[in-house]
Every structure is written in C-alpha cells, then in structure tokens.
C-alpha cells in the first residue's frame, strides 16, 4: 500500500491545565496533531482523556495554556466557534435525537451550512428548497458511505447501539469537518461492530483526508489504526509517539499495559 501523506501541524495544545475544585484533571499537557493523521489519546479510566477532548472542543475552558488551530491561538474556545472552524465530534454517550429518523439526525449536522433562515425553511420557498436538495444529497452520500441505507427512515432510538454510533459519526461527518474528534467510538461494541467502525474511521481518513483525533480503550484498535499516540495518566502526559514507541515506553507499560511478560 502506498504511504499516505501526513501534513503540517494543524492543531496544537500548549501546556494546558484544568482542574475542578481541588481535582487536577489535566496538568501541563502539550501535544500536536498533524494534518491527515489519526491521532489517538489513550489512558486508564480517569486519566483525563475526555476532559482534554472537551477543552479542544470548547466545552471546558482550561485555567492555563492555549490551543492553536491553523495558526490561530486561543486561550479559551467556544463550541460554536470550534464547529465553524471545522472541528466536529462524536460523543461517548451518544447525544442523538432518539425520536428522529437517521436521515434527520444526520441532516441536523448540516445546520451550520444552511444559509436560508428558519421562516424560509418552514414554508420551503425558492432558495430554501433548492438548498435542501443540496444538503439532502450531501447527507445521502454520507448514508451511502456509512452503509446505513436500510435505516434511512428508522427512528434512531430503535437502532442497535453499534448503528447509533455510526449515525453519530454520520452527523459529525455532515459538517464536512477538517478535524474529527471521536470520543470512544468503539466503546461497548462487539468485535464485528468494532471492525466495521475501524474501517469507517480509516476510510474517512483516507477518502476525505480528514484528521482524526480519537480516544480509545481498545489497545488492539489503537495500535492498528493510529499514526501517533498520546498517553495520559492521572492528568499527566506520560508518553507520545508512534504505536511502536509507545508500546516500548517503560512508563506507559507500567501505568497502562501492566508489566510485560
């Protein structure tokens, strides 16, 4: 297989610290993400992985440090602004509209791209209708890509968990993001669903050149699909490098993987 092209640094996290009262969730974390790569964040429970993602995403504001995205530096991000800049995310505990169809859920991901106003959309006049066709086509391409054609009209709440995760990914993709943040995309899945999800993540990365930052518990998955891995433990960064480097890092082995045999 031909090597894929990994570009320049697109996202940089500099000396971030975050605490909730007396609990230090993150202390002095720095790492970067390069364009087109798959970057994994791993660590034991409570290591601060989701907090880190929430800082990048603008849900939390770190007390110290800054985040640089495409050369622009921010001390705090706000989630709307992050989305406008082209960062999309999925959630560990799915945040889908359970009563709405798969199609409508993914369509909601197009929200930022829709230009006509609420009233025009409601009565579907001229440009609004044309625009809807355009967005529907984009959504259909995602449905095709994620192979969920059979569930287009099914309310999301009726779908099995593995498929809901796929819809969640679909909604994030609908934003046509440059950076995709995935919070435990394979959690709670069986082996087959995990394999499917891995393939979709790799395909997103390959077909659209989307940069992927993912949190994952499954070591096999992480080592197989990511280009570089950051390891957190108790809010501190204890390792950073290729899967191979991380696997041989003494500190990581004792903190996360257990002692080697």
């Amino acid at each position: 297989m031909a090597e894929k092209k990994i570009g320049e640094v697109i996202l940089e996290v500099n000396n971030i610290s975050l605490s909730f009262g007396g609990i230090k969730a993150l202390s002095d974390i720095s790492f970067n993400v390069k364009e087109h790569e798959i970057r994994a964040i791993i660590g034991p429970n409570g290591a601060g992985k989701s907090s880190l993602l929430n800082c990048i995403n603008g849900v939390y504001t770190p007390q110290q440090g800054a985040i640089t995205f495409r050369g622009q530096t921010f001390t705090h991000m706000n989630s709307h602004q992050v989305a406008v800049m082209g960062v999309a995310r999925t959630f560990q505990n799915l945040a889908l509209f359970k009563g709405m169809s798969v199609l409508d859920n993914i369509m909601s991901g197009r929200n930022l791209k829709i230009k006509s106003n609420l009233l025009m959309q409601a009565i579907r006049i001229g440009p609004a209708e044309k625009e809807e066709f355009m967005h529907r086509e984009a959504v259909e391409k995602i449905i095709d890509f994620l192979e969920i054609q059979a569930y287009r009209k099914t309310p999301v709440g009726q779908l099995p968990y593995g498929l809901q995760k796929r819809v969640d990914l679909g909604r994030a993709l609908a934003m046509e993001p440059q950076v995709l943040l995935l919070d435990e995309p394979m959690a709670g899945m069986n082996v087959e669903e995990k394999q499917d999800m891995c393939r979709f993540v790799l395909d997103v990365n390959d077909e659209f050149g989307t940069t992927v930052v993912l949190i994952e518990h499954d070591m096999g998955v992480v080592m197989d699909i990511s280009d570089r891995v950051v390891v957190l433990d108790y809010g501190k960064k204890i390792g950073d490098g290729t899967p191979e480097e991380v696997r041989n890092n003494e500190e990581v082995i004792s903190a996360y993987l257990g002692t080697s045999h």
Partner: protein
Amino acid sequence: MQTTFPRLLMKHAAERPQAPAMREKEYGIWQAHSWSSMAMLVEHITCGLHLAGLTRNAHMVVIGANRPRLYATMLAAQSLGAIPIPLYQDAVGAECVFPITNADVRLAMVEDQEQVDKLLEIRDRCPDLGTLIYDNPRGLRSYAEPGLRSLDALIEAGRSFAQSQPGFFAAQLALGQPEDVAAMFFTSGTTGNPKGVVHTHSTLIDRAQAGAEFDKLSAQEEVLAYLPPAWIGQNIFSYAQWLCCGYVVNCPEEVSTVTIDLKEVGPTYYFAPPRVFEGLLTSVMIRMEDAGRLKRSLFSFFMDVAKRVGPERMNGKPVGALQNLMYLVGDLLVYGPLRNNLGFSRVRVAYTAGEAIGPDLFTFYRSIGINLKQLYGSTETAVFVCLQPDDQARADTVGVPIRGVEIKVADNGEILVKSAGLLKEYYKNPAATAEVLTADGWYHTSDAGFIDSQGHLKIIDRVKDVGRIQGGANDGAMFAPKYVENKLKFFPFIKEAVAYGDGREKVCVMLNIDFDAVGNWAERRNLPYAGYTDLAQKTEVYQLIKECIEKVNADLSADALLAGSQVSRFLVLHKELDADDGELTRTNKVRRGFIADKYLPLIDALYLGKTAQFIETVVKFEDGRSGSVSATLKIEDANTFAAVKAAA
C-alpha cells in the same frame, strides 16, 4: 428466432431509445438507465475490454451484486465474443480458484474492495489472472497492485477508442453467432469440483422466450434483481428475459434494503426461492403476534376466509356469492394492505423453485391473491422445463412441460428432459457431460419423480439419495431423505433438517431450529435463553420439535411408499448449518455426506441409543478467522406410527 444478447440490446436501443432499461437506487433516488444509454455504455465497455486484451472465446469473470454496470460488462464481453462467467459474490477466495484456473481466466471485473481483496488473496494460485477491473473505487485508492484498474478508466479509454474507430463495435456484433457460447455457470457442486455449465446464446434465448410466452410477459413488466447474478435463475429473469422482453430490471440499493426496495418498485414479475417467501411470512406472523387485539382477530378471521375461498378463486373456480363478498371485504381490510406491505401489490406472476415449498406456505400466498406458482428446471436446462399454468398451481407438483420440452421417466424413476435449452457441455469435462447428456439427446436430471394423472410433474428426491432401510422393523422400505427433510422444514420452527437412514435400521435426523421463530415463541413463554446454542438445548424446545416430528411421522404413515421413512430419533444441533463451514451449498442445500463426516460422533450417538453427546466444532467467521463452539447435545426419541394400509 436466431439472435444474440448484444443484438437484442441494440434492437431495444433502436426501437425504444428513451424507455427505461434498468433502474438503480443510488443516494436514495431511483436512477433510470434508458436502452440507448445502456447501449452506449456497453459499446464503451466493449472497446475498453478489447483494449484490455479480451479476445473472442476467452473467458472473463464477473463478481458483484446486481448493478447495471455489471450487466453491461457481461453484455460487453458477449459483444466481443468472449464468455462471461458470473461467480457468487459471497463465495470465499478458495472457491473462486477452480473456476478461474479451469477456464484460463485472465481478466476479472468485480464490484468493490471486498471482491478485489478476495481475488488478490488467491492471485498466486491463479497466475494467469492479469487484469482486475473494479467498479466502486472506495477504499482502493492506495492499492498499487499490478493490473488493477477502475471500470471508469476502462470506460473512458473505450470511449475514445470508439470515437477513433466508430465501426468497431458494430463489426464485433456482426461476428457474433447464436451458436456461440454466451455464458458459463459453475454449479455449486455437492461433491467434487464445481462444473462449468456451458450455454450458448440460442439455448438461453430459446428458454427465456418459451417462459415469456407461457406467462405472456411484455415490455411493461417490472422486475427486482436481488438474487446472486451467478445463479442461472437470476440470469434468466434479469438478463435473458430482460433482453428478450425488454422490460425494466430494478437493482436494489444494498442487500440490506431489498425489502424496502421491493415495496417501492412493486414488481409485476417476481421470483424467489421458498426460503424468501417463508422469511416474509414469518416476519408478518411475528408482527401480527405483537399487534393489538382488534387487528389480530380481524387478521385471523379473514385469513380463515382466504384459506377457504382464495385458492379456489385463483384457480378460476366458482365460489358462492356470500363467500365471494366476504373475500372482497377481506381484500379491502386485510389482503390488499398485506400485499402492499409485502411489496406484492402489482405481482402478476410469481415463481418459486429450487426447493420444495410447504403446502401451508404456498396456500397462504395464493389465498391472499398472489399468483404464486412453481417451476422446474436447473442450470443445465436453462431453467424452464415445467411451469404451472395460472389456474393449476399446486404445492406438490412443479407444473406441466412447456413449449419445446419433452419429458420421459426412466426405469429407475429418473426424469429425462429434451429441449432446445439444454447445456452445450460441461466445460473441459467430457466424462461428466457424457454422463448427463446421452447420445440420444436426453438430459438426465438425476431427479426421481413421476408424471401425475393431470400431466403435472412431481419430484420426490434425487435419484442417488433415494435409499433403503436395512434391518429393523421396516427392512427394505424406501427412504427419501429430502422428502422427509422438506416435510420437517415446512414447520416454521425448523430451519434445517438432515435425515439419515439409508442402509440403517431406522431414520434419525439432526435439526436446526429457526432462531427468530423459536426465539419469539420462547419470549412469549417467558423462557430465558442466552443465544442459539442455549435455546436449541432447552427441554421445552425439544418438546416443541418432538411434536413437529410426530406430526410428520403421522403424515408419512399414511403414505404406503414412504411409511418406513418415519423419524425415530432426533437431536437439535448446537450451531446453525452454514455455507461458510461447507455444510450447505451456496444455494443453501444441505450437504448430507459432508455433515455426516463432520458430526460423526453425533450420528454414532443417534444410532447407539445414547441420550446425550458432547461435540466441539470449528466455525469460520465471515472475515475468514475461525473459532470453536462446543456443547453437550440431548438426543430424544420420537413416536412412530404403524403404516396405514392404502384403502383403495
């Protein structure tokens, strides 16, 4: 009428250029391809394949789901005088090696990454396979294998070639003769290597037209192409008859959307093996169980009416005025909406074949006004041998010989067929050809059967499978395993059955329960279970299955010929029989001998009178990895009945 498939295409393109030839659902919308755009696509692929080195009489492999571009590629290969070989898209790599090497295939056109991976995996065993063309580029961007190229690029190259040499395509078409080989179909082969069944344009077209005449098919039909293109039946319904009649073939969006697409298309001409009809009925019944009380009672009341009146009405017999009125009310309230829900509102002719169909299942569809009929034929006979006329549809026969067919029953009970649609030969296998196609022109079907008093053909079993019981109370009695298995499988709770008894003193069976049906049954009885293996071994489930077997025994005891085939002992297997594990053929028929070898300890336990037996089995997952399942299986006895002496 003497013609070839590519010429038929050009005829439609000239006569009705803008009429739709195929539709494909893509991005949620049905996209139509007109006959003229289809013809242009075929011309470009033809030129592209010519540039890629495909020559007259060479073979090429096509693997993929039903897509307009797949059928266009087959037409293009035929336009060049080459021979397309469709292979099953769910066959594992190893199964493709034999056809590819046997037919010296150098070029393959496949649908997507999955199929490309499959062929790359076996490439070292197929050294001649130089060119791989793929339709869908998804995931293949970074592949750098030699000879791998996209269909888009091939079409593009073909387009510029066609512009520079505008007469090339027409000249190639003119070279094609009706007696040329049109396609080769590999039979699934219950034993040994598969055999390549060679058909010419004239054999396929002759049968396709005979079938079309029989049912008065026109260009107005709508067909849904959802069965594997490698199967000759699919080829006849969505290719040969498509080109003969000029109707519209609709390609579903995905395998998983077939039931949705069926409703949207509303086909007028439909084919499905019995298991598809069974699956649809099971899903209706399961949903009915969960419906409200009013709906349930309406359903059961009007289904009783339908059972009494429906089949008679379908067969054109008079029914009383009151009965007729009741049926019409039922049609308004139940049958019509049900047909609509199943996607059968517009069905004019529906066929089932390949396996015996249960009488209840068959009657159900006829009673709600669907013209379901049976046919008889095989790959070797280009499908159409016997068909049932609209007013003579019956569950236990397969119809009357149609135009151009002669039928004879040999002394050993074997059905012999003569028609213009017989295979030319088995490819590179004169010994096998001589075995089935004798010098006097008869094709030996290896099916045992007879022609009944109304001129309908009735099939009992494969000639070689009909055995004898040896020893015990029924010494010397006839044993027809498939007949017994089919009777068992007619129960919705039993998915598969394998019967043994030839050369033994009694009949024993191994079963698969239907996980959906039995699972639902168990849930309604608050019977908890962890999975298939657990459910299969429940005492209650054994009791349920035992009742089914005893009903079959009672039924068999009424048949003087087959009373000795009653089932004495049975067990429910711990895993579902699967084609990936070699237990079923790709067309889902049980491979009795293979299963007997694989589960030898179980067979021994059945005949030694044990009440339980431990077994461990290796299973293959869809991704090619394997694991194992083990369980201790219960074995139980079933009551048999004394043979009822025929009164007359």
